[in-house]
């Protein structure tokens, strides 16, 4: 009975971390992070450079596994299950938690193949053409590319490439989409398009976005987590709450200093 209650409680969050510490070799990059991500919302992670924002984001879909020296202590719960449990297959985790990277990284294939490849390898049986159209419409790219689906994805502009990467991610129907500074390589207009797109997508998906840009977090996110470095250069989470509150009435002095521009 008790167990069940616990499960329902943790199901309330999209993802939950319990005292997560991430090390690169001996260096502790992230210290004791307890974060409860709100489902179907845009969750922003902000903070100064080197505070471990990207590290914690990459921990959510086990991308840190590819960094040989990295290892994690603590647990990250998805539906109450620790994704770092030895029985959990990281491939399965990454399929459920998609990721959009800092620089647009479409495959050097056609626009269509960029979307179909990911779904094919995951054993999708349905109609591929419908799925391509649906994904491209959801990522607001359909009208721009519908006549050129067989052109190379590398012929698109940076903003279009990034939206294609988002389309490719949502095509495999993940539960959560991680975005690692998705607009840092884009111009302001492309950035706005991506932000509008995130708003649309948050109706269906939980979005976690790391951003350097405080204005972006303020205008585009529902919840914000503020990270900073403590004395031993390890990243710590200072606070997490509704974006409006974090930016107007932060509870912590360090948050206030950062968002008012006195630091970082």
């Amino acid at each position, binding site marked *: 009975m008790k167990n069940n209650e616990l499960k329902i409680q943790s199901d309330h969050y999209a993802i939950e971390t319990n005292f997560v510490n991430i090390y690169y070799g001996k260096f502790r990059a992230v210290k004791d992070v307890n974060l409860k991500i709100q489902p179907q919302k845009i969750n922003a992670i902000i903070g100064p450079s080197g505070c471990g924002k990207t590290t914690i984001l990459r921990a959510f*879909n086990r*991308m840190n596994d*590819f960094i*040989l020296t990295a290892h994690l202590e603590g647990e990250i719960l998805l539906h109450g299950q620790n994704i770092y449990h030895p029985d959990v297959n990281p*491939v*399965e985790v*990454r*399929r*459920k938690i*998609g*990721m959009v*990277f800092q*620089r647009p*990284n*479409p*495959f*050097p*294939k*056609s626009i269509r193949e960029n979307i179909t*490849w*990911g779904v094919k*390898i*995951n054993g999708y049986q349905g109609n591929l053409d419908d799925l391509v159209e649906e994904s491209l419409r959801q990522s607001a790219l359909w009208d721009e590319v519908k006549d050129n689906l*067989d*052109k*190379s994805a*590398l*012929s698109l502009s940076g903003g279009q490439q990034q939206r294609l*990467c988002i389309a*490719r*991610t949502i095509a*495999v129907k993940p539960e959560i989409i991680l975005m690692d500074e998705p607009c840092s390589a884009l111009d302001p207009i492309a950035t706005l398009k991506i932000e509008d797109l995130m708003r649309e997508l948050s109706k269906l998906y939980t979005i976690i976005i790391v951003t350097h840009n405080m204005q972006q977090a303020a205008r585009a996110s529902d919840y914000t987590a503020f990270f900073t470095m403590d004395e031993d250069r390890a990243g710590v989470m200072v606070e997490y709450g509704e974006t409006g509150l974090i930016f107007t009435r932060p509870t912590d002095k360090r948050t206030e200093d950062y968002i008012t521009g006195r630091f970082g």
Partner: protein
Amino acid sequence: MIDSKNQNGFNHDPKFMHARLKTGKIWHRLFFSSTAIGIMALIILLISIINQSLGFVAVENIKDPQSISTIPFEQLSNQQLIEILKINLSENRLKTIEREKPLLEMGQSELIKLITEKVVDAKVVASWTLWQSIFEKEKISALVEASYPNAQISFRNWLNWDFLVRSFSSRPELAGIRVAIKGSLLIVLIAIAFAFPIGISSAIYLEEYAHPSKWLNRFIQTNIDNLVGIPSIIYGILGLAVFVRTLAPLTSGEVFGIQGLSSRSILSGGLTIGLLILPMFILNAQEAIRAVPKSLRQASYGLGATKWQTIRSHVLPSAVPGILTGSILAVSRAIGETAPLIVVGASTYITSDPSSPFSGFTALPIIIYNWTTRPQDQFRNIASAAIIVLLISLLSLNALAIFLRNHYNQTRVNL
């Protein structure tokens, strides 16, 4: 007054600027002259080879064509030509000729060729380089008149079609490199068939699967790095021990039911060259795989792809151009390898084409080496001609590598 030469602690003296520029110019000249020396060496090499492969020759006929037939050969019928052959050649020589192709089946041009080669039998008694032919023409004429009264002077391009398609001969003017070209080709094909799949697979393992923190993997990697630099003759000795001696039943074809052949076969040579290029294949494929952007792998893994799916669909296709160009360059090095083939037992004198992987063999660099060691001048001429053939095949391989690289770079963007 502020010292105009020393404002804010910086030296503004025009002389100082002049000195800085001068230093730069000196280095500029130094680098240019180094390049010039390299280019000069290449040009001299090319000139000396071409110089040897063209030039005047003094030709003496064993039998004067006029004494065989007063009418030019071209106006004779096939019957008459066969008659000439029968009169002038011994029974045995006719038989050996007929064993290849009966006289009656030959066309007129073939018969004329036979007569000029076997009956008239033009012999090159002296040859001169291109340089001498251009600038010392009178001297050559005088010399020929004095020493070879029966000889005629003609200009000869040693690198001609006959040279490419003829088999070996102890007489340089009749010798050709057909057997050597076929031998080189077969050796390289066997080497590629052996080394390419193994090389690519090892590179994939080392780059994608092997954990670099394990000492065994680091040990293997260090060894492969070092193997590239090992002198090729050592590979020859390895090939001799392994392929010629230990695996003799395999390399002589005994396992396949072929009896009586030596294990110093094309197969042994090809496998030895394969061993030689294997570390080059591995290293260069590793580099090509490493050069595939990390972002591409991340994109693939981020969609829930497994390691093999990522390698198969993204890493390998992106690495193919690099793997191909690097491999071609390694192969072009292998074509010129001489030492290991000598050790493995390439023959220097073979007149019959290789008929199977178990035949004895020779290769282009082997005959070049052999010919340059002969005392007669004319062998130097045909050695130069063979060197030109070797150089052309190397250059075309390198050109192919460059073409492939450019082609793939284009298609990646244009699709």
